């Protein structure tokens, strides 16, 4: 238990690290690992939201609208996870880890220019403003059905694997819906907690939230995010990101190997 707390404290945080850590290093059943991870994902999202809110980038309307997709997806994912064998989950988890390592090491795309609004976005009022170089820039979402569909997928992954799947959410908003990157990342963080809450409900009522495991993980992640958040934000150098991506990819390979050989 103490080790679990320390593991979460190392600052890596996030579901992508917690589940492999609990499952591979502590030999905890992957379903309980995912349950504990979901709780820590909620804690991180809620805990850090206050800081993001102050910046005024997040768009609550876009977030709320897309949460219909993510929460439905999250419930589907949670149902799948609670009935799927450990082996399958471990392999999917490994694949997602490797993919997300590739995505996170990629460079951030340049800011897109203002494009004509999508009629559906106008009807749903999926627009907003954000400060850029001290000026307020108006933006509007586009390709809503594609973004909505991707969000459903992000929710399913989140519920299935106990991760925030923030990368997929940012991808859906930033690349598919052409919402500015800063708005996408902060809104995504806002959505992660609500999405995780939907699947956590399913895990809880099916008995997969074990307080003895969730307690140290959650407290560790909370302490880590309260103490370490500031320093981590600053340490965003390219080198750190590459190291992180390599670690994630290695964990992914290990998960697939363990899943295939049935060691979990």
């Amino acid at each position, binding site marked *: 238990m103490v080790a679990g707390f320390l593991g979460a404290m190392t600052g890596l945080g996030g579901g992508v690290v917690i589940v492999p850590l609990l499952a591979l290093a502590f030999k905890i059943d992957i379903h309980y690992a995912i349950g504990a991870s979901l709780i820590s994902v909620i804690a991180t999202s809620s*805990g850090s939201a206050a800081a993001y809110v102050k910046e005024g980038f997040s768009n609550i309307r876009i977030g709320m*609208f897309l949460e219909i997709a993510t929460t439905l997806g999250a419930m589907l994912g949670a149902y799948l996870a609670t009935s799927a064998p450990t082996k399958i989950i471990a392999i999917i988890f490994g694949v997602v880890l490797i993919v997300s390592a590739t995505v996170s090491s990629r460079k951030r795309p340049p800011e897109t220019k203002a494009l004509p609004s999508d009629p559906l976005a106008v009807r749903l009022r999926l627009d907003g403003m954000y400060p850029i170089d001290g000026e307020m820039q108006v933006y509007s979402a586009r390709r809503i059905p594609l973004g909505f569909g991707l969000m459903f997928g992000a929710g399913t992954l989140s519920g299935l694997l106990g991760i925030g799947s923030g990368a997929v959410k940012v991808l859906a908003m930033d690349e598919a819906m052409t919402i500015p990157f800063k708005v996408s990342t902060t809104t995504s963080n806002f959505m992660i907690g609500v999405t995780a809450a939907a699947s956590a409900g399913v895990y809880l009522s099916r008995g997969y939230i074990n307080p003895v495991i969730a307690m140290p993980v959650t407290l560790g992640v909370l302490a880590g995010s309260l103490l370490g958040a500031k320093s981590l934000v600053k340490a965003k150098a390219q080198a750190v990101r590459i190291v992180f991506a390599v670690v994630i990819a290695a964990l992914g390979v290990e998960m697939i190997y363990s899943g295939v050989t049935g060691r979990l």
Partner: protein
Amino acid sequence: MAHAKLTRSAQDTRLDRQIGLLLRTGTLVSAAVILLGGVLFLVSQGHLVPEYHVFEGVPDHLDSLRGILSGAFHFQPIAIVQFGILLLIATPIARVLFAAIGFAVERNYLYVAISSIVFTILLYSLIRH
């Protein structure tokens, strides 16, 4: 048009700020409850070495709202931890409800409806199984 957008943006900011405060408070309260339960749990049975890789599910009463509440009410340490976890899950759900109220104040009925859908999905996930 531009004026309408500006007004909306100001309201967005106020709503955002209140929601941020709600999330932070919810998180801190849950963390305090989890910590309290955790300390009580360690004091009462920290000497036991638990077996973590063979699981038979959590005790029956810890997977339902009623069970958790009654356990926490009787000061069972592990139920207090679970109650804290429940509070943590409830925090984002409360934020959706809070947003719905905020949209109602703004007379943005489309988003009252959207928030209500999300809120219903969340309640369903927590209650009906």
